[in-house]
């Protein structure tokens, strides 16, 4: 590894070559990783004052969330930023994680490249074990103050340990002082780190606040508390008590392996033979595939794995390329899932009162070069989201928000290359980041997210990833577009509703008053104007976790009508009010519920209502209501039941067919009337 002194000396005159080489030799020495990073802070993302402040917090919070999830604890993380001098900030991050055993504490916080995840193949936030110790080191260097670490592990007899840690940059070893056991009042388990760092506290797009807010969106199971330097406390409340499924650890997949990797795995293997090594140390290599690889590579099957030579390795890798191997298992990934993405978005963005949350999309996992990955996307539209600028892009990798280098990121690229004009957003020339009142969320989860740098700020681009992001976004965008269309239709039809519900009754009353006659009955007039069955949803929010959804069904036609309603409800949120309603028919495993309103007399209305309770109550969009049993033109306020819903309803249209034909004629007559205007 080059050091600066060496580079400088190289400029010396040529004639003294030999002497200099000797002289140089005395200066050539190993430099520690720590020293290397000290001189190349920007590699870790510590390249500006404001960014350094954020990076430290990000590393600590990522670790806290990882630790809590690994221990199956619902995370409760608190972040405090205090200004102690002009550019000096004291930062404290505390979690309720499992804690760290006393003797490991110095290494975890005081040694670079020390951690549990570097060798593991699974989805996690931190990977290399650089982050938190780099933060400690950066604090040491810039302010000369040690980091103070406290941790307590679960157990009645356990005490908390606190210590000051400084990293010796020469040896990459922690120097511990003030190591003391104490009683951590009211804390069962958890870890806290406090350090002082030179930084700059900023507001806006790349701020600590924004980072924590975005973190809360993709981690709806976490509660995050933030005390900013002005003393304001913000709590991002937990939106769900459901922990994400714990990602499984997988063995490496042979595809895309480099020769060095193979030799390293072989050297560490506990297996006795190459065959066993191939079969047991990799995922998706069966006995048959192992035989095939061994035959093609001509490596002896009973050779000891550590005896594999470079040539053997090359032959094995060549053989692997020609053998068909199943894609890696994908259960090692833990996507957030469509419901929880929506939940997280709703929970954190509620202040913007968005008009629409497009149903988030979680793609099925794909694998490239032996690394499985999964893409998720969501779009939030309208409300108070600013409509005059570019859309806001929320990028996430393994549940960590990416705030920097938006331009260099594969996610941004995929968004820019889509033609958003087709989906109702503005975009100059059909390329680039679209404009409009929208927030686009993309989450990439993988056992190994390909970042463009160690600072983990942007996802590197590869064709499979870009295509997956594109597909996820298109699905979401299609939902958005159909919502926008629905809204437009709704506005149009709402006008008619206004006529019959408000204008005409008012007119009848006023005329009657003026002429001193009885108020005329408007039923027939209204049926003539509307000639539809009208479905009007209303949602009453009763407290945080209770919603009463009511569909009022008006029969504005001249005949009795039978109609079925269908909606997909969050199954865990329904209660007895759903099942006990007289119109309720049934609900299947997916939460698809059916109601039937039979023989609703003309000029009357009835209601279908139910309560939704609990966490998922607010994920149901009352406008997502479908009907069957009447022709499309005869119903306003609901959509025709799509064919792919896989529930009955279609039969009913058939039994009603003779009746419908007659109605269709009536409908066309009305349409002609309208044309005459």
């Amino acid at each position, binding site marked *: 590894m080059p050091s600066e002194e060496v580079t400088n000396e190289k400029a010396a005159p040529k004639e003294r070559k030999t002497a200099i080489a000797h002289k140089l030799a005395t200066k050539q020495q190993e430099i520690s990783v720590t020293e290397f990073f000290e001189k190349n802070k920007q590699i870790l993302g510590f390249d500006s004052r404001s960014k350094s402040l954020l990076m430290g917090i990000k590393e600590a919070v990522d670790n806290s969330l990882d630790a809590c999830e690994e221990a199956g604890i619902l995370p409760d993380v608190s972040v405090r930023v205090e200004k102690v001098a002009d550019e000096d900030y004291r930062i404290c991050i505390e979690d309720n994680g499992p804690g760290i055993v006393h003797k490991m504490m110095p290494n975890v916080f005081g040694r670079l490249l020390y951690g549990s995840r570097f060798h593991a193949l699974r989805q996690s936030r931190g990977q290399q074990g650089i982050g938190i110790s780099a933060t400690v080191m950066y604090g040491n260097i810039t302010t000369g103050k040690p980091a103070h670490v406290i941790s307590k592990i679960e157990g009645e007899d356990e005490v908390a340990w606190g210590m000051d840690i400084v990293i010796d940059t020469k040896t990459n070893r922690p120097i511990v002082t003030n190591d003391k056991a104490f009683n951590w009042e009211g804390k069962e388990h958890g870890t806290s780190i406090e350090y002082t760092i030179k930084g700059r506290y900023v507001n806006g797009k790349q701020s600590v606040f924004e980072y924590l807010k975005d973190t809360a969106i993709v981690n709806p199971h976490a509660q995050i508390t933030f005390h900013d330097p002005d003393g304001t406390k913000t709590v991002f409340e937990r939106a769900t008590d459901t922990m994400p499924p714990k990602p499984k650890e997988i063995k490496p997949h042979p595809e895309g392996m480099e020769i060095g990797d193979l030799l390293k795995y072989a050297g560490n293997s506990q297996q006795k033979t190459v065959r066993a090594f191939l079969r047991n140390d990799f995922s998706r290599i069966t006995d048959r595939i192992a035989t095939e690889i061994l035959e093609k590579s001509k490596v002896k099957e009973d050779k000891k794995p550590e005896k594999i030579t470079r040539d053997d390795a090359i032959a094995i890798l060549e053989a692997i390329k020609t053998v068909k191997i199943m894609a890696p298992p994908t259960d090692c990934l833990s996507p957030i899932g469509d419901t929880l993405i929506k939940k997280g978005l709703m929970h954190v963005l509620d202040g913007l009162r968005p008009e629409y949350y497009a149903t988030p999309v979680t793609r099925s996992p794909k694998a490239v070069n032996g690394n499985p990955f999964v893409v998720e996307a969501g779009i939030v539209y309208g409300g108070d989201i600013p409509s005059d600028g570019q859309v806001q892009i929320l990028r996430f990798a393994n549940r960590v928000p990416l705030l920097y280098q938006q331009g260099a990121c594969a996610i941004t690229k995929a968004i820019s290359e889509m033609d958003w004009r087709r989906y109702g957003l503005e975009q100059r020339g059909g390329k680039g980041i679209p404009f409009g009142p929208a927030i686009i969320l993309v989450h990439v989860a993988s056992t190994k997210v390909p970042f463009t740098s160690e600072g983990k700020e942007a996802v590197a681009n590869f064709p499979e990833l870009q295509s997956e992001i594109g597909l996820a976004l298109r699905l979401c965008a299609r939902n958005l577009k159909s919502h926008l269309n629905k809204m437009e239709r709704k506005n149009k039809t709402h006008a008619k509703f206004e006529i019959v519900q*408000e204008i*005409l009754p*008012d*007119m*009848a009353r*006023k*005329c009657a008053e*003026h002429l001193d006659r009885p108020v005329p009955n408007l039923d027939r007039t209204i049926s*003539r104007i509307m000639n539809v069955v009208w479905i009007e949803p209303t949602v009453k929010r009763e407290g945080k976790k209770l919603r009463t959804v009511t569909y009022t069904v008006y029969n504005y036609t001249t005949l009795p009508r039978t109609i079925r309603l269908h909606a997909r409800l969050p199954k865990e949120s329904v209660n007895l009010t759903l099942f006990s309603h007289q119109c309720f028919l049934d609900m299947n495993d997916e939460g698809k519920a059916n109601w039937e309103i039979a023989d609703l007399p003309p000029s009357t209305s009835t209601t279908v209502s139910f309560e939704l309770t609990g966490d998922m109550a607010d994920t149901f969009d009352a406008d997502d209501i479908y009907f069957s049993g009447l022709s499309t033109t005869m119903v306003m306020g609901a959509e025709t039941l799509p064919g792919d819903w896989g529930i009955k309803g279609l039969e009913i249209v058939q039994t009603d067919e003779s009746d419908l034909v007659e109605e269709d004629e009536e409908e066309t007559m009305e349409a002609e009337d309208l044309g005459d*205007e």
Partner: protein
Amino acid sequence: MATNERQQLALDSLTGVVEGIYDQMDDGQIPTMEVPLRSKKNIEFDAKHNVWKYGDLRTSRTAKTVNGATMMLRTVYTSDFINEMIRDNKSSTLREMYYISEGWNHAKFHSQDESNLLAEDLETITGCMREDFKLRPEESGAHVYGDLNFTTMTKKGMKTMNCIDDVSEAGFAVPYKVEEDTFQIDPGNTRFVMAIETGGMFARLIENGFPEKYGCALIHLAGQPARSTRRLIKRLNEEHNLPVTVFTDGDPWSFRIYASVAYGAIKTAHISEFLATPTAQFIGTTASDILNYDLPTDKLSDKDIGALNAELSDPRFKDEYWTNEIQAMLSMKKKSEQQALAKYGLDFVTDRYLPEKLTDMGVL
């Protein structure tokens, strides 16, 4: 017709309209209402009065659309409101009605234009004048200067005023109602009337002593003239045989000002015979003036060009004179203001331009 009788007639016709709507609803029909189409497509020349009036085209308003239903609801509310005013012997301005409509639910007016339009609608439907409905406009905005006398109602009874001696330099302010019963005219030494578009030119002619020198009654129109201004011009012309001339800027909008004075405005075509002065002559500024006097000009905007093209399809402008003027302006793509004459000095307009023009017209 006596005032009481006219009001009773207005009341009866309004009640008739409301009754029509009620009966349709009572019969289970979709309420509809027929009103004369109030656009340039439906104005016809009335040879008897020499003015443009509405033709036979009618438009049907139906409660099937929000607009139709809202207009009908407004008609009902307004009728009720007028009914109340007549009963209580009150009157209100159109602006007041606009504010009163705040409590009218969906019938609420969203702008003053909407309430004005509705008042005109009621006039066309019932054949009554809005004064019969006890609705009056805010103010006329027009001013008169010249050696003539008006006898009009003031707080201290009927008073006679000379429009030079008894008024300030701004002239005599025209009230909203100029009918014989409250407003009598004595033409005095006036020989002709000149309606002027801009206040600047009005003041220039007064300062230069033009009205006194030529026996001219100046009327400042202040943009599109209000009804009472046009009615006053009509009365000066019809009852006192004073020739009427119109002096405006040279742009498409000024042509329309002249048209509404001389031929009748499209919006009020149902009462054109009371308001329009068919013999009014256009002094300028014409397209040929711009060329002949080499006046400073502005370029026509897209809106101006649109207005000129619209005028080409307006039946009121369908004579040789106006077709030529409009075409000339379109081809030179320029417009000019009447005050552009000041290019040749402040006295040029009174010493040369107007005497020349008026002599050509046979007014002087």
